């Protein structure tokens, strides 16, 4: 009933094409997260769904209706703007209650809902302030409040937690998850925070330069990125990527050699490769462990000790940089030579076009 269907959606600003044909279907009640690098078109896509940006090409359906030409107010949506867009002349209370007022909700109901939202957002003491008297994070919470007091079929959130501190982010994340559960509304959420994406999403959409790179559940994206871009983008710190070439193909296994490694045997879609192909090997920093013997040897460049884990930046023989995230606190000195090992099933092999080739199940 309030699922969404995006068909070859396009958007250009003059000659600049920003959204280049996005196909996507979102089910009713699904929690979808858009991620992608800065400027890839997340906000634009959200604004197109909201009806704030004219659609240059393609078709957008909400429920079973084509809404390309439908006014935002008739689309049954609420939205948190990346730039907040709070009404400067209204108090926080009025900002939050504005949508309800327009919908002619009874005064008591409105009041109750506003106060509920304020409690959830921990800003009950701010209700009488004007936006100009708020801190950045407080403004952002007002923007969230404005969306959540209403009960639309679709929620659109554009980086709603970016200016909140960690504790509040966690709280808010939980509240949004709860809201999603309680209302069963469809939610589309833009974030650049991987944890948010991973924990909230039923489905993550990875965008790059206006093109969808991969759509899937969080764990799918983390474990089986479709291509180099997704591999590099999902997971923080980034997946390490090493180039090499295929030296042997054998059943489900491919053997790869390169400047930084010798004859590493990995499981992959053997049919996609032949000996001599240039490939890229991907391995997540968290999947590496220090070991006496291993495939990768390098010199420590930088050590970041975070308490519960240690980030080690290593320079490989080819000069490439390599990052390992080790559990616990390790004392390592720059300049020290270290050896890392990993499980062959933890590595991903990308072909020359950057497409991941997993072993056939």
């Amino acid at each position, binding site marked *: 009933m309030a699922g969404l269907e995006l068909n070859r959606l396009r958007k250009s600003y003059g000659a600049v094409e920003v959204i280049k044909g996005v196909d996507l279907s979102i089910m009713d009640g699904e929690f979808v997260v858009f991620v992608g690098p800065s400027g890839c078109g997340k906000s634009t896509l959200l604004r197109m769904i909201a009806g704030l940006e004219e659609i240059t090409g393609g078709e957008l359906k909400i429920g079973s209706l084509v809404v390309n030409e439908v006014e935002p*107010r008739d689309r049954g949506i609420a939205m948190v703007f990346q730039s907040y867009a709070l*009404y400067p002349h209204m108090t926080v209370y009025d900002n939050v209650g504005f949508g309800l007022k327009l919908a002619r909700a009874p005064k008591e109901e409105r009041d109750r809902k506003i106060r509920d939202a304020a409690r959830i957002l921990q800003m009950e003491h701010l209700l009488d302030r004007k936006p100009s008297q708020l801190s950045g994070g407080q403004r952002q919470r007002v923007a969230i409040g404005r969306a959540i007091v209403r009960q639309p079929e679709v929620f659109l959130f554009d980086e709603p937690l970016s200016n909140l501190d960690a504790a509040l982010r966690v709280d808010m994340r939980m509240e949004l998850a709860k809201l999603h559960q309680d209302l069963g509304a469809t939610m589309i959420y833009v974030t650049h925070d991987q944890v948010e994406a991973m924990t909230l999403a039923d489905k993550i959409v990875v965008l790059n330069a206006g093109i969808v790179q991969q759509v899937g559940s969080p764990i799918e994206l983390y474990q089986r990125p479709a291509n180099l871009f997704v591999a590099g983008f999902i997971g923080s710190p980034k997946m390490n990527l090493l180039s090499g070439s295929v030296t042997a193909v054998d059943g489900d296994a491919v053997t790869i050699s390169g400047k930084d490694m010798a004859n590493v045997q990995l499981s992959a879609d053997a049919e996609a490769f032949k000996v001599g192909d240039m490939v890229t090997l991907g391995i997540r920093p968290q999947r590496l462990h220090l070991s006496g013997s291993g495939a990768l040897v390098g010199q420590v460049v930088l050590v970041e000790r975070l308490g519960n884990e240690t980030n080690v930046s290593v320079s490989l023989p080819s000069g490439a940089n390599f990052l390992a995230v080790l559990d616990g606190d390790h004392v390592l000195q720059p300049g020290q030579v270290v050896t890392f090992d990993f499980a062959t099933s933890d590595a991903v092999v990308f072909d020359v076009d950057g497409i991941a080739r997993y072993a056939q199940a």
Partner: protein
Amino acid sequence: MSVTTADSAGALQTTVRKKPIQARYPGWFILPAAVIYSVLFLAPTVSSLYFSLTRWTLFDSVFIGFENFAQFFREPFLVQGLINTVIYAVVTSGMKVVIGMAFAVLLTSNIVARGYLRSVVFFPVLVSTVGVGITFTVLMHPTQGMINETLALFGIKGPGWLTNPSLALYSVALVDVWKGVGLATVIYIAGLVAIPRDYYEAARIDGATPWQNFWYVTLPLSRPATATVIILSFIGGLRTFDLIWAMTKGGPGFASDTVASVIYKQYQAGFYGLSTAGNVVLFVLIAVLVIPLTMILNRRRGHE
């Protein structure tokens, strides 16, 4: 880096005294304007106040105390003039505010022929008062005027717009609106384009209909423009006489006289001291009406 330090240290010495926030908006910005304004406007105007206490022929003046004021208040049509003045000011400024806003909203939307419409609305502002006066005395002619001829097509006998004593003032006020609404409109347009689009977007998402959009977003956020238009057109309405002069000379008889036109008549008659006294009275009247108005309008200021 040592160079910069020496620099900033030097600067530190000189600026230590000033309050930073004030120094950002230095008072001398006002100075050039203040000098020109005080020397060429305030000083002569204030000095002319003395003449309100004299019988003044321009060639010589005789001090007569408050006799001019007494005389002014004895003007036979002063009370009616006062009432007319307020009616005229309220009608013209009210209509300019409302119609100007409506035009501005229309002319900032993506309506077709926007450039044409903007020009057409502004055009009357450009035409000299004399021309407007003549044009409308012709159009409002009771028998051959275009307006009444058009009404006659519908079987309505149009009134004597300018010759009927109870109508003349309103007719002139309408023409004043016709002539001045373009000005209000451009001020509003400047106000409307200054409103960030974000707020409209937020309101559209919040479910605002175009009317609610206007009422809850446009109107409050164009407050600077509204305040300006109200103040300027209200003061203008209280003070103008040129159009009244061009169209009815305050007539028929004294029916469309306002305080300003009474004063103007005195001035034209060479009663310079008396008209100066009249101006003082009018000034007080305007101030009494306008100062509280500005205070209300500026109470909550801008987007802050």
